[in-house]
């Protein structure tokens, strides 16, 4: 059902956790009655220097969250902004058709976090 890469990220997820002082936070999914993810970023100017996540969801959504953090750490905001619904799935070597929404949730998470970052920037502007 799942590729070895998916299983690996599910069993040994990278970058689980939170930051006490994140530069951006994004939420995605349905926190009331579905999968949900919370993404915490450290951003240094234009570059994502750190990412952590928490996810309630199926194996694919945990693996997707984990893979996402790997992908974006070191990326510029512009690069991370390019992440599409299927980007994480492809990076994982594919997901079952019925699990593509897990890849989409990860994409939603990073976009939410980047929006949060932009909002914070605007707020700190005079």
């Amino acid at each position, binding site marked *: 059902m799942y590729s070895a890469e998916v299983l690996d990220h599910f069993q040994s997820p990278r970058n689980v956790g939170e930051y006490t002082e994140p530069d951006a936070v994004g939420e995605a999914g349905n926190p009331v*009655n579905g*999968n949900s993810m919370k993404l915490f970023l450290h951003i240094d100017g234009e570059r994502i220097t750190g990412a952590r996540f928490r996810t*309630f969801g199926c194996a694919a959504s945990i693996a997707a969250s984990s893979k996402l953090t790997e992908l974006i750490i070191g990326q510029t905001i512009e690069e991370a902004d390019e992440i599409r619904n299927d980007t994480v799935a492809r990076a994982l070597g594919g997901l079952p058709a019925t699990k593509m*929404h897990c890849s989409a949730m990860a994409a939603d998470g990073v976009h939410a976090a980047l929006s949060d970052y932009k909002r914070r920037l605007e707020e700190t502007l005079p």
Partner: protein
Amino acid sequence: MDRVYMDHNATTPIRDEVLETMMPYFHEKFGNASSIHSFGQECRVGIEEAREQVAGIISARPGEIYFTSGGTESDNLAIKGVAYANRDKGNHIITSQIEHSAVLNCCSFLEGRGFTVTYLPVNRFGLVDAASVADAITDQTILITIMHANNEIGTIQPIERIGQVAREAGVYFHTDAVQSVGKVPIAADIAGVDLLSLSAHKLYGPKGVGALYVRKGTVIEPLIHGGAHEGKMRAGTENTAGIIGFGVSAELAQFEMDSEARHLSVLRRRLEDLVACRIPEYVINGHPEQHLPGTLNVSFPGAEGDALILSLDLKGIAVSSGSACTSGAIEPSHVLMALGLDPRAALSSLRFSLGRGNTEEDVDYVMAHLPDVVGRLRGISTVATQG
């Protein structure tokens, strides 16, 4: 790696004795049971013997048993069969919110075709109130369909009382007994049941064969039309080997029901006790007493069901969950939601369904891994827990 199967409500392995009895019907006795030559007649004899065996387990007469391709077809035959044949008497059906999808989807199909359906709620243990059934009956009611034992939580309905309500009102009563037959006693006629669905693969028989009990005199329209098989109730060349296997498995289940129930109850208690000792924050779903002997449904808030299953699967443990994360989103189980569970708790449930092959060692093996698995997922989760 050890492999421990605790998903017997999903399906069971065929017993050796059952498979052995089936074997000759694949090549030596391979005839079509409707053929009048000896190749056919030797199959006919076997099928009629199986009919007696299946009738035996629900104290019915062999002539009231019609073989089908499984529990789902039996439910369809019963519900659509009554609906089509009794449309002139009314268009109202009463069921519960926690039925199997076979029943619920027949009902919703009929809703699109001029029928109205009342979906009765259940209490927090999953029980339907017989009085609420009585209250729901109108002069248009032609069928009450309430399951015997629930597949997810194991709760057993008071079908004798519902049967009495149905008889008094002169309304047909169907019960989906796919999960209970062979596990707890049930006498169809005494329970006031007019139609009762069975499936072989839940009681160590083959997949793809089931039966519908139709009390003598009950008027239903066939679902599958064609040749004059099964007393013209169900057309199609008989699945001889499957039917023979169903017969033997039913007979064995009937014979061993008591001892098996004791065995399962002991294991279930051990599992429940170990969960209580070793895992903080959990909720048992289902009725504390009126339940199948081998079914235990537990929610572990913070850990999602599908992820729990896969984690256990990687340890060789097969269980199932109350969620099906398939088509675009995870859907919490309609059964757990009907109990009033918070959706997140419903999404965090596991169903352990024990079977005859399970041992204390199996339970211990599961409990050697479950606390870690739950803890690990909670550690990743967005959902805060104390644990």
